[in-house]
């Protein structure tokens, strides 16, 4: 039985490595910039959703305010870069740390809330963050920050002539988030998180530190999402509050995981692989002057999938468990 378990873990790792290798080779065949753009966003959202899944999927603390950490990552990086000349790579780390600390600071009062109340709190906090940045003159307020372009450079992590470095970074981020999840899944933290999600009271009785489990999940989750935010800022080279802290980011982190299978290792990647291209394509096909048709198409598809497979697309692949003889 234990062998089965070890085999499954190893199999997951091999599949992930194979998928990453295939993904790494796609730019050899895909030269179209629009398609490359979609691939980059897909990988980025896969990574973000995977990170969101740590707190909301595994630990069960549904957050619809992760846009806050995404935006904090973006702003920390760009403020440090434009105001103090700190390289984005350090800004990225700083953004991650700032977000993780803020996540824990917010967790301190809010992890006492349960269920819907917690969700509402996350939405409200992210909106407050958005408003603060809207009015913060030093951080560019509503005008935002334009990242000065100094030509292609790995050091400054900006590229005009090619999108490939962004592609590889997004791939690395996605792999990192996946690997962190894979690794934590079979650790004390992973078990604690799932126990906290399923039944906090029982978890407590088994010696689980429920509060700190949530804090740990929040910190890891926020850190990774902030790194994604820094990346995005460099990628689009212009940020303003709406474009990095808007509510849509919170949704776009949650939806792939929910669609693919919340609280599962592969759910977010699977969900993002379907959802993000769909988002971009519907926008491409139905978006434009009318605005909104793409969202209708998109929304309808999500509703249909949720109705058909409430536990996510991944449930299509899980074989029914043998229930044994007892009955």
């Amino acid at each position, binding site marked *: 039985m234990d062998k*089965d378990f070890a085999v499954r873990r190893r199999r997951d790792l091999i599949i992930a490595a194979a998928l990453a290798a295939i993904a790494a080779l796609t730019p050899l065949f895909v030269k179209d910039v629009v398609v490359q753009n979609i691939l980059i966003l897909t990988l980025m959202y896969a990574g973000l959703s995977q990170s969101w899944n740590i707190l909301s999927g595994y630990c069960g603390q549904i957050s619809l305010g992760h846009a806050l950490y995404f935006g904090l990552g973006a702003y920390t990086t760009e403020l440090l870069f434009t105001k103090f000349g700190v390289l984005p790579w350090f800004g990225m780390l700083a953004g991650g740390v700032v977000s993780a600390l803020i996540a824990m600071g917010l967790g301190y009062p809010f992890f006492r809330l349960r269920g819907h109340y917690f969700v509402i709190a996350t939405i409200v906090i992210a909106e407050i963050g958005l408003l603060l940045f809207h009015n913060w003159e030093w951080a560019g307020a509503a005008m935002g920050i334009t990242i000065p372009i100094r030509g292609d450079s790995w050091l400054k992590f900006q590229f005009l002539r090619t999108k490939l470095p962004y592609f590889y970074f997004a791939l690395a981020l996605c792999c990192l988030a996946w690997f962190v999840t894979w690794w934590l899944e079979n650790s004390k933290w992973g*078990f604690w998180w*799932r126990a906290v999600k399923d039944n906090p009271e029982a978890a407590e009785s088994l010696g689980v530190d429920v509060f700190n489990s949530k804090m740990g999940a929040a910190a890891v989750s926020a850190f990774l999402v902030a790194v994604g935010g820094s990346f995005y800022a460099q990628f689009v080279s212009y940020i303003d509050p709406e474009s990095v802290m808007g509510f849509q980011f919170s949704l776009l982190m949650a939806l792939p995981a929910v669609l693919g299978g919340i609280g599962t290792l592969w759910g977010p990647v699977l969900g993002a692989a379907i959802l993000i291209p769909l988002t971009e394509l519907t926008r491409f096909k139905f978006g434009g002057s009318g605005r909104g048709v793409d969202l209708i198409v998109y929304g309808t598809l999500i509703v249909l999938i949720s109705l058909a497979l409430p536990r996510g697309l991944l449930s299509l692949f899980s074989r029914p468990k043998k229930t044994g*003889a007892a009955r």
Partner: protein
Amino acid sequence: MSALLETRGVWQRFGGLVANSDVSISVGRGEIVGLIGPNGAGKSTLFNLIAGVLPPTQGSILFDGEAVTKLPAAERCRRGIGRTFQVVKSFETMTVIDNVIVGALVRTTVMREARRKAHEVLEFTGLAARAHVLASDLVPAEKRRLEVARALATEPKLLLLDEVLTGLTPTEAQTGVALVRKVRDAGITVLMVEHVMEIVMPLVDRAIVLDLGKVLVEGKPADVVRDPKVIKAYLGDRHAVGA
């Protein structure tokens, strides 16, 4: 030798309701003690006070010679108090083995070791064949068993069983009784809440009867069941006269 568990003058009030008044009990090492009493006697409240779900309004609780009165449930588990829940609280989306691993992780952070321990406990509780089934797919009697298994994985010195034998078929109850004996034989002290007397009485070394929040009678099961006060509490005055 000091008692493993002791409550001293424990009171618990919920608003105007006094659920426990001045309850002092003790449980010796290696004993199986039954905490019984009619519905509303305050058994579950006392049980929760000992498990650390809430602190008592007044009084103190000593475990293994130390005061644990204000410690949270998780810390009491680390100290060696394991418990089950009257209404089962399995981790439904996790497999049986994973449920038990959560318990085992209190004593080790090495996953291999926790897994080994969990398998051992499943073997002990007769759930080994169901290790890889989701907890939500278990039948009620198995869920009760899983509660016990999970608590055992934390390597408790004292195991608190909250009505684990209630609502089972006679066969299931017999298997349950055998398991409780096995637990005690493994050196674990057991304090069990039950209100079905016929099941507990043959099993326990000592019975403590609660009524209206107070300790009514305490002693050997054979004496307790004949005590007029107990009969009165359970059945009313008319029956006590005949006894």
